[in-house]
């Protein structure tokens, strides 16, 4: 096959029945990650129809969204917040038992956020099709997989048939040329991209991130970039696999082993966009222009450089409404704003390198008086690895909280919320109204910016601590 994009190669490798004018393609799914929030109604449907899960071994179930992150000495002590969440978690356990699925539940060393544990286990691999009832499934595209979020009806489709009905999306190339300046991270990069293309710039498209700046990123950073593809409207974002990818995957529990490893790498090396392949749309960005980014409004496209003034939205009422909600003024940089809460974590920035970056800033410093700071590892494994190198001690000594793994304050449905009207600097992915709690005002930023803001009690350029 010549002149194909990375996306087209993965897509065509999974077409069970080709699309026609009348009907969409049947696309085979290699990995289906499931969690407690978007599956109960799908299992109910299977039960009504008397259907089994077609491929239990291709289904990876865990619990992350409605699970508490309060520190516990034993998972027996875990106090789930609210009867409804407790019921949902119990149902996840009983559904997995009933349908023969191997649940990564409480007490399992691999439990964590769906998009953190897939890669960590080596279940996420180049060339796979990966779906989950969660829009940040785009994260797995960092490995050269085609990964996207689906709704609960489609979760049922995949459980029952291992397939989805899909129309082939369009392709969008995002080239980041040059070298990212020191003190600027993958989070800043993707926020800048969304600022440029807008929150609907990728609608109907699969993004491929390309260029020197992308190739230079480690896997954690690539995951941060692909994770937020959906915030630009694209269901999936991909990066061609390379030696960085293969090194990350080598020796992981579910990675190919022995002779299978060699043949897998040989196959994965073919997964790149051919010379001369065409994209439906293309965007370029010079890495050298990047700086730490923070959001000022109520969607991730409302973003500004840390030292730049918040723009004036003219007479756009939606822009005005967002600034009123945020209590932010045009014309001033975000660095003037006092901070109440700082959250480090989520499927965007809850991996070991993110915790390290926060700890680097916090080391020998204190969280400012009146600021609550939560550091929430994305998985039990991240937690264990962070503790093995003493990051928890640095975080606790600074006066921040070190929590159990989970989605936590990113989604505010597990007991971790930002109080009404309070300003949160958060490493998560959405600054939507009420996302972190009713009336919560969210500023999205990198782990370094969030930690620096915790120390100074104001939105802060992290480069002063570099």
């Amino acid at each position, binding site marked *: 096959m010549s002149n194909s994009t990375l996306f087209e190669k993965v897509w065509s*490798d999974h077409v*069970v029945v080709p699309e026609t*004018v*009348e*009907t*969409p393609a*049947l696309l*085979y799914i*290699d*990995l289906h990650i499931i969690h407690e*929030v*978007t599956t*109960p*109604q799908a299992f*109910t449907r299977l039960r009504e129809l008397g259907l089994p899960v*077609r491929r239990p071994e291709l289904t990876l179930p865990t619990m992350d*969204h*409605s699970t508490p992150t309060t520190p516990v000495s034993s998972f027996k002590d875990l106090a789930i917040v609210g009867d*409804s*969440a407790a*019921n*949902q978690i119990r*149902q996840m356990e009983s559904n997995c038992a009933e349908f023969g699925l191997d649940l990564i539940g409480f007490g399992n060393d691999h439990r964590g956020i769906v998009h953190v544990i897939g890669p960590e286990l080596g279940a996420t691999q180049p060339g796979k099709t990966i779906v989950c009832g*969660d*829009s940040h499934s785009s994260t797995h595209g960092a490995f050269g997989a085609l990964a996207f*979020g*689906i*709704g609960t*009806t*489609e979760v049922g*489709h995949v459980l*029952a*048939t*291992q*397939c989805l*009905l899909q*129309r082939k999306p369009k392709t969008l190339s995002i080239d980041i040329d040059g070298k990212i300046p020191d003190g600027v991270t993958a989070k800043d990069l993707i926020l800048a991209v969304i600022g440029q293309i807008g*929150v*609907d710039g990728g*609608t*109907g498209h699969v993004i491929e991130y390309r260029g020197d700046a992308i190739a230079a990123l480690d896997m954690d950073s690539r995951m941060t970039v692909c994770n937020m593809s*959906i915030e630009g*409207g694209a269901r999936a974002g991909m990066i061609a696999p390379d030696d960085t990818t293969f090194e990350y995957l080598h020796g992981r529990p579910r990675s190919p082993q022995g002779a299978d490893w060699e043949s*897998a790498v040989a*196959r994965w090396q073919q997964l790149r966009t051919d010379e001369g392949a065409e994209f439906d749309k293309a965007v370029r960005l010079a890495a050298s222009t990047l700086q730490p980014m923070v959001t000022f409004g109520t*969607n991730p*496209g409302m973003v500004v450089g840390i030292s730049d003034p918040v723009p004036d939205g003219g007479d*756009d*009422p*939606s822009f005005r409404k967002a600034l009123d909600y945020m209590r932010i003024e045009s014309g001033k940089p975000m660095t003037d704003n006092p901070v109440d809460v700082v959250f480090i974590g989520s499927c965007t920035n809850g991996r070991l390198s993110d915790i390290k970056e926060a700890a680097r800033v916090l080391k020998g410093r204190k969280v400012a008086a009146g600021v609550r700071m939560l550091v929430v590892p994305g998985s039990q494994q991240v937690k264990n690895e962070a503790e093995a190198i003493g990051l928890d001690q640095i975080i606790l000594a600074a006066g921040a909280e070190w929590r159990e793994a989970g989605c936590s304050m990113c989604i*505010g*449905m597990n007991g971790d919320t930002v109080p*009404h009207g309070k300003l949160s600097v958060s490493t998560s992915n*959405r600054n*939507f*109204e*009420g*996302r972190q709690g*009713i*009336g919560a005002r969210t500023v999205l930023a990198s782990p370094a910016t969030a930690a620096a803001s915790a120390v100074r009690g104001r939105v802060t350029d992290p480069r002063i601590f570099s």
Partner: protein
Amino acid sequence: MTSIKSIRSRTVVLPTKDIDTDQIIAARFLTTTSRDGLGESLFYDLRYTADGSERTGFPLNKAEAKGCGILVAGNNFGCGSSREHAPWALLDYGFQAIISTEIADIFRNNSLKNGLVPVVVDGDTHRWLLDNPGAEVEIDVQNATLKLPDGQTTKFPIDGFAKYCLVEGVDQLGFLRQHADAITRFEETRAWKP
């Protein structure tokens, strides 16, 4: 699924752009294990203040909005999460169709699976609809047209298969299962196995 051939109703208008699924239904309502009864939680923090009283200025709270089955929204409606609770809540509240200049991918897909009709219109039609809340319009799903009160008719894009499923009330899982043999053959013959 029940068959949906046409919808005739008055509109209620939410002109804000980029209304995300967190605003449609906040995450704290997602601990349910059912798809029923979510209408109560629809746009909750826009409909009610923190102390639980109704926000009088919110369009859905106005008397004339009662019984309206068509929601006209600002550009890029339904962006954000994949929660199917968003269309479930809209349907449970009584909406049958959403009209905007752009509707986010996952939300649109989830809507079609549940019989909530996504209608994307041009800027001029949209502006007229934004300026005329309560207008009685007709959506003909079979012919993919939207008819305004003056009789003017505009086409809207809809995938042929999605339209067929809406009009005939086809459950897509049933359609997928008809291909069970093809799926088995694919699993047996593919070059590499996951």
